């Protein structure tokens, strides 16, 4: 049995991801420079693959840092308050910050991170997300660099999981309905 059998179809191919990330990197290369190196903050676990591919194409000096968060109960609440399991290793005070996310959905988690970061007095905060689902948005959040706007489908792969599976699928795929319906009923 292969994990690829659970995938209904490919939404974004490896080649499309590669080309789009190159374009995003080029966009960022125009904005940032060695004179004021930004910190790229990867939100774990989902964004690690996006971070690995994006940062390898940046021509300006930068640092990477990681944050791992977890919701308190099931799913995200409207307050968006999350538990910080791993905080940043370095201070962002006075620094330019780029939050690197795999997907922006309701926006609650990102909104919480933005509010949390604002208290640390960074010089600037921008958001880079591989996927954006605007139709799911419940709270307005600024998103500066977007890989792909996608419809409200059950996506996985390239860092995104479903029940901790499929993160390593090298493209963005749509899961067969019977896979997530089974789990919903379980």
């Amino acid at each position, binding site marked *: 049995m292969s994990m690829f059998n659970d995938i209904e179809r490919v939404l974004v191919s490896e080649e499309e991801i590669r080309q789009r990330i190159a374009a995003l990197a080029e966009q960022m290369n125009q904005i940032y420079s060695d004179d004021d190196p930004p910190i790229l903050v990867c939100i774990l*676990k989902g964004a690690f693959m996006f971070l*690995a591919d994006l*940062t*390898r194409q940046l021509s300006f000096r930068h640092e*990477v840092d990681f944050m*791992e968060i977890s919701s308190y109960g099931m799913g995200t609440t409207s307050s968006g308050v999350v538990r910080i399991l*791993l905080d940043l290793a370095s201070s962002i005070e006075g620094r330019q910050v780029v939050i690197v996310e795999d997907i922006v959905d309701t926006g609650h988690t990102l909104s919480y991170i933005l509010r949390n970061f604002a208290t640390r007095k960074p010089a600037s905060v921008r958001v880079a997300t591989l996927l954006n689902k605007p139709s799911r948005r419940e709270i307005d959040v600024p998103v500066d660099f977007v890989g792909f706007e996608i419809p409200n489908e059950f996506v996985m792969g390239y860092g995104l999981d479903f029940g901790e*599976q499929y*993160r390593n699928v090298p493209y963005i795929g749509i899961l067969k309905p019977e896979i997530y319906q089974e789990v919903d009923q379980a």
Partner: protein
Amino acid sequence: MPVPIPDSVSYVLLDEATIERRVQEMADEISVDYEGIHNEDFLLVGVLKGSFVFLADLARRLTVPHRVDFIALSSYADSAESTGAVRLIMDTRADVAGKHILIVEDILDTGYTLRYLYRLFEARQPASLRTAVLLTKPDRRQVETPVHYLGFSIPDVWVVGYGLDYADRFRTLPYIGALKSRVYEK
């Protein structure tokens, strides 16, 4: 556009194509060895920050289902020389008891960090415990820990890129380069 080679890098030790080929070979080997193990039972543990690039490339080339988890460590002293004392900043989210654990590490230097991790996981009674290490510097070794999958054996030079840093710099260069000695000799 390729990322320019920084002035601080004296030469490229391992270029992108060489790394890619070797990571693919390692992934093939791992995929054979872990064939038939259920997704829930096979866990790749990436060690932050250094191994995120290696983990991203290795994971997506595996053909066997698995989960991905992260662990963050820090040394006590803020010195370049590892003394062996390691502080656990963030533990894995998954319970490792009864699971097949593969520790994914960027570099094996003195060996203290990998030994710490190996002992940490060994004590948690996993079904099996192995290590995948991209680089080893045998000349630097103080303590031995088993390495099951090895990328490259390299001489004792300060290497940066592909996850490896010098004071948080050069971490995301797409190749592995040797740092000019004037950068770290003060």
